[in-house]
């Protein structure tokens, strides 16, 4: 199938993109298009206008800003995987992105597009949440910054308003933290049935701090706060980690679908949290 007809604009600045959005009641923003184009092709959405951000150079790239790195919303997965700042300061994000879809999709797909699409089975939300990321949203009134914990509102729903754009992702530096993303799928390049993003700061063989994000364990990415608290200050032994990670699904209400029911997902979350923390602490 092919999409329904729409008008198309490809502005070269954020200001022009905002003006194009304000000018329509039913516009869709095109980032990398790797989720949007299938949706348009299957006619799950039929916007009257598509605003393509692909020609806005200022939205691409990664820079250092004090104790954080700032990632342009239109930076592709492939560029993030090759970026030395991401590797050094946000290893967890890199580990998650390595598992996204396949090479062709990672070539075109962008971090901003994935975050605003907010598919609960997407792999970018959990690491951004676990790393205490902040999302820079730009509208006609200027910029505002929203914590990742407040950004994801529901299935496919974020704090970005109709006439706003996500322009940057700010990740506090987690330099030297161990990281692992453990993703459970049954076949190659499937969406995560459950995935776990874990990053730890080690002091010798003790876990000084831990951050754990869960993918597809609810309508938004979640933090496994009970596990994080239980891990803090613990020796990184298999027994202590297993005990802390048994709490990974506490307070979650995961979906039931053909890939597994909610209780199965809760079980998976504890297993994959243990594996992710063990790998991150290694």
């Amino acid at each position, binding site marked *: 199938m092919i999409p329904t007809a729409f008008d198309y604009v*490809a502005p070269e600045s954020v200001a022009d993109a905002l003006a194009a959005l304000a000018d329509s009641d039913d516009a869709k923003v095109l980032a990398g298009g790797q989720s949007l*184009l299938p949706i348009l092709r299957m006619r799950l959405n039929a916007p009257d206008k598509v605003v393509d951000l692909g020609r806005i150079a200022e939205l691409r790239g990664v820079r250092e800003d004090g104790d954080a790195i700032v990632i342009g919303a239109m930076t592709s997965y492939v560029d993030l995987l090759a970026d030395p700042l991401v590797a050094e300061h946000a290893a967890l994000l890199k580990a998650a992105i390595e598992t996204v879809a396949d*090479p062709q999709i990672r070539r075109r797909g962008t971090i901003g597009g994935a975050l605003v699409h907010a598919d609960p089975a997407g792999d970018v939300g959990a690491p951004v949440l676990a790393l205490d990321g902040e999302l820079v949203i730009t509208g006609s009134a200027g910029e505002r910054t929203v914590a990742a914990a407040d950004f994801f509102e529901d299935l496919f729903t974020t704090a970005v308003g109709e006439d706003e754009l996500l322009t940057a992702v700010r990740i506090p530096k987690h330099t030297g933290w161990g990281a692992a993303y453990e993703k459970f799928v049954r076949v190659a390049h499937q969406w995560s049935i459950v995935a776990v993003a874990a990053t730890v700061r080690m002091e010798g063989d003790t876990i000084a701090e831990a951050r754990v994000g869960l993918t597809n364990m609810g309508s938004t990415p979640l933090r496994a706060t009970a596990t994080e608290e239980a891990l803090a200050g613990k020796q990184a032994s298999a027994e202590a980690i297993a005990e802390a990670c048994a709490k990974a699904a506490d307070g979650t209400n995961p979906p039931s679908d053909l890939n597994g029911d909610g209780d199965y997902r809760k079980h998976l979350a504890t297993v994959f949290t243990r594996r992710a923390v063990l790998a991150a602490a290694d």
Partner: protein
Amino acid sequence: MTRITVTVDGDTYTDDVEPRTLLVQYLRENLGKVGTVIGCDTSNCGACTVHLDGRSVKSCNVLAVQADGHEVTTIEGLATDGQLHPMQKAFHENHALQCGYCTPGMIMQAIDILKDHPDPSEQQIREGLEGNLCRCTGYHNIVKAVAAAAKAPGAELASSKVGE
């Protein structure tokens, strides 16, 4: 309609297209480049893989208007002067196809793998082909062909004009 100018397999075309036109449709229906095939409606299968500015993309997942001002290479642009590209030759010699439907996308993606990994391990080849499905499940010889092509000069290049 939106006017686009795209270089495809070395020739430059200017056309008015509907914005909803997929790149793969533009290649097949406007330019007659039917070597690039459509295998699925979900962006899973990779049969429509082409190179956009030298790197692989799924052409069902790119709008033709997004390719405005850019360069596309399809399976039809690989051979020159009747001489197969080293990757095409390797697929031929290693019997790396059965029904052949996935082959255009497999070859385009295989060339892309060699750009990142000039001497790929079997694991790197298999992971590099993760977005390309072969429903005859002939992966064994496909992987063999990519490994063989990696040893041939110029296999990572966009065309068979090795050394030009």
